[in-house]
């Protein structure tokens, strides 16, 4: 049954029908009718941000910690353009978002009207799909379609551009059940013959490895459960990309740590030397592969991915399986069990002996100090003091992000929110607020560098306004640490523009925002400072002054393969040469 209402009312009605409880947004001229409707209802909570980029990252944090789509509402022109970084971030990391933008009225489109931008044109390459709605009658169906497309298949951000006159006009509302997307039918089930072929290979593999990624987490908690069951039943080692941390628990017996550019020695060596690689919801990103020509040269590669374009994009795989990770893992387990739960146990045992030898290199070792706080040590203490709380961790981008991935232990999916593909500095603070809004009682910590944190620090105002007790754990080295590290390795220690001068006093900044703050510089005070941050009733900024020139190791230098990692300070000279120097 259709009901007649204004476009603005339709937006609220459709969000309600989609089960939306929270919208992150910022009002402006072209969305005033929708804000008027928000004013007149209580079902949907609106979080007023300080900058539209913050709104999108908050929605990402909300989405990644709940598995539900994040919803953003911003105005036309600058509202929409400010959302572009967040949209691109969500597209790269496959985060489901529905972004609603206001637009100038239809009769002004194309006239360079006030706050007019070609939002659809600008956001076309950074959304999974987008729509300009020109008729109020089509608005409700478009919103329902948008939710379906954002959350199904390989998830991603979608955007709906709604001109102001469409918001004012009346039209027929349709419910979510009445929509169709005939040209969009993502596959769920993988090809059973290929799955069986993979199981056959699993039965004989001598050096197997499960290489898991964000696709496991996007597939839902059921997929993580199935991955755990498969890994534990077969005894295969599990490594994960940055995006997939938590899908398999760090305490699990198959866990060998994160792989990639700053991944663990044992994980990268195992990838290089394996004879059967099973990629599960991972896309062979360049941070993972190192030099493509030398990537895991002796292995048969299988890849499970819901997006056919992820297959054979970078690395040629022998057994491609297009389907949802959860469904495919379920079928794999079924077939494997039906065939008698066989593995080449003796060989896999030998494989583990080799992996243990790599582990014994203790690649995360660093020289601790009682004079200055080492960033690695700070994270180990954070891990120790929060372990019982199962915290949600967000990060900014840079050295601190890699250290967090290395030193924090993730036991569950949806507890780790970081900007992987795009590498967006300024992601962590707003993302932490989005997580906290979704989980008001949980401990939410943003592990940050001072430079990244400053990029969206205005959102502390949002945290204080909405009483989101997010903990900002800033590893302050007064440097753009990762840039400085690369300049040391690649540019003859000429540290061009990679230091942060005139930094604010973070404690006074906390005071100015109306939240808690503390600076800690002495390793002896670190535990007490972390405890104060955790116990503080409200948002808190902990400014941890750390070693300024610490480098993040291990590291696969650009243009090098997995088995040529840098393990410590001694080996950095001339590390990046030739073609590798041109890579990022």
């Amino acid at each position, binding site marked *: 049954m259709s009901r007649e209402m204004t476009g603005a009312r339709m937006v609220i009605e459709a969000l309600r029908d989609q089960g939306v409880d929270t919208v992150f947004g910022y009002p402006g001229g072209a969305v005033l009718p929708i804000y008027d409707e928000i004013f007149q209802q209580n079902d949907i909570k609106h979080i007023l941000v300080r900058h539209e980029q913050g709104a999108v990252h908050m929605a990402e944090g909300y989405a990644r910690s709940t598995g539900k789509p994040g919803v953003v509402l911003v105005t036309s022109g600058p509202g929409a353009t400010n959302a572009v970084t967040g949209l691109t971030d969500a597209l790269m990391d496959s985060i489901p978002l529905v972004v609603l933008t206001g637009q100038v009225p239809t009769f002004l489109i194309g006239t360079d009207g006030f706050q007019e931008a070609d939002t659809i044109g600008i956001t076309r*390459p950074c959304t999974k*799909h987008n729509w300009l709605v020109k008729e109020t009658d089509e608005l409700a169906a478009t919103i329902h379609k948008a939710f379906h*497309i954002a959350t199904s298949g390989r998830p991603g951000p979608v955007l709906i551009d709604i001109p102001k006159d469409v918001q004012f006009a009346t039209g027929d509302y349709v419910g979510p059940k009445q929509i169709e997307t005939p*040209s969009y039918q993502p596959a769920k089930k993988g090809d059973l013959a290929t799955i069986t072929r993979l199981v056959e290979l699993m039965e004989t593999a*001598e050096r197997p490895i499960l290489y898991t990624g964000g696709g496991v987490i996007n597939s839902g908690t059921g997929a993580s459960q199935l991955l755990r069951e498969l890994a534990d039943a077969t005894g295969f080692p599990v490594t994960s990309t940055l995006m997939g941390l938590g899908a398999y628990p760090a305490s699990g017996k198959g866990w060998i740590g994160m792989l990639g550019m700053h991944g663990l020695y044992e994980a990268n060596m195992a990838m290089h030397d394996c004879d059967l690689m099973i990629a599960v919801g991972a896309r062979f990103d360049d941070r993972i592969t190192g030099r493509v020509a030398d990537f895991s040269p002796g292995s048969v590669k299988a890849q499970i991915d819901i997006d*056919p374009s992820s297959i*054979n994009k970078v690395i*040629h795989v*022998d057994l491609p399986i297009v389907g949802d990770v959860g469904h495919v893992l379920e079928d794999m387990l079924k077939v494997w069990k039906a065939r008698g739960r066989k593995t080449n146990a003796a060989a896999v045992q030998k494989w583990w002996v080799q992996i243990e030898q790599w582990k014994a290199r203790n690649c995360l070792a660093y020289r601790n100090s009682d004079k200055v706080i080492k960033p690695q040590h700070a994270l180990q203490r954070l891990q120790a003091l929060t372990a019982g709380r199962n915290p949600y961790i967000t990060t900014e981008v840079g050295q601190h992000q890699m250290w967090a991935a290395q030193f924090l232990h993730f036991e569950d999916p949806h507890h780790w929110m970081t900007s992987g593909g795009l590498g967006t500095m300024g992601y962590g603070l707003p993302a932490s607020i989005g997580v906290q809004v979704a989980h008001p009682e949980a401990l939410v910590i943003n592990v940050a560098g001072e430079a990244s944190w400053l990029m969206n620090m205005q959102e502390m105002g949002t945290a204080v306004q909405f009483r989101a007790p997010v903990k900002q754990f800033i590893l302050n080295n007064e440097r753009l640490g990762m840039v400085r590290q690369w300049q040391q390795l690649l540019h003859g220690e000429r540290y061009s523009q990679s230091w942060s001068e005139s930094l604010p006093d973070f404690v006074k900044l906390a005071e100015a925002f109306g939240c808690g703050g503390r600076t800690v510089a002495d390793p002896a005070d670190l535990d007490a400072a972390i405890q104060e941050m955790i116990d503080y009733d409200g948002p808190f900024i902990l400014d941890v002054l750390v070693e300024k020139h610490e480098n993040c190791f291990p590291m696969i230098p650009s243009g090098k393969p997995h088995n040529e990692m840098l393990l410590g300070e001694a080996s950095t000279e001339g590390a990046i040469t030739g073609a590798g120097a041109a890579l990022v």
Partner: protein
Amino acid sequence: MAALNIQKGASSHSAYDLRDPNAQTIESHTLAVLVENEPGVLARVIGLFSGRGYNIDSLTVAEVDHLGHRSRITIVTRGTPAVIEQIKAQLGRIVPVHEVHDLTVEGPSVERELGLFKVTSKGDKRVEALRIAEIFRASVVDSTLESFVFEITGTPEKLDAFADLMRPLGLSDQARTGVAALARGG
């Protein structure tokens, strides 16, 4: 572990690329892309090609099903086998794309292009242009005392050959539609 027993070679009906993954030969492929005729769909397709650095040698588009609002985009593109497979997969990912067909590997197909060529000349050259046009079965669609406009339909190669012959005879302007293509048979 025993090597995988997967046959190499073209697999036209597989969703997966089983050809030699390391082949570096550049191939030309004609793709037929059936899309929902909604605003911006052509921009999505073109943006994909420019954004990811793929080539477009020729592109035609028109609505082919007015009731169903379906358009057919015919694209001639070039790349290594791996790049061609990636282009098809990326096209398939666009939400309003219904089907992607690689006419080059899906069996025999016919390709046609229409061209209009203006030849400006007098005397012997003018006679010669008319004579060659006859050989190519081009028709004269406009004529003045000093010029002809020829209309010719054929493969892109035929149009190229015609243009090459007309160049010394006073070819002064040309317009080409790009390739339209269909699979042969039922």
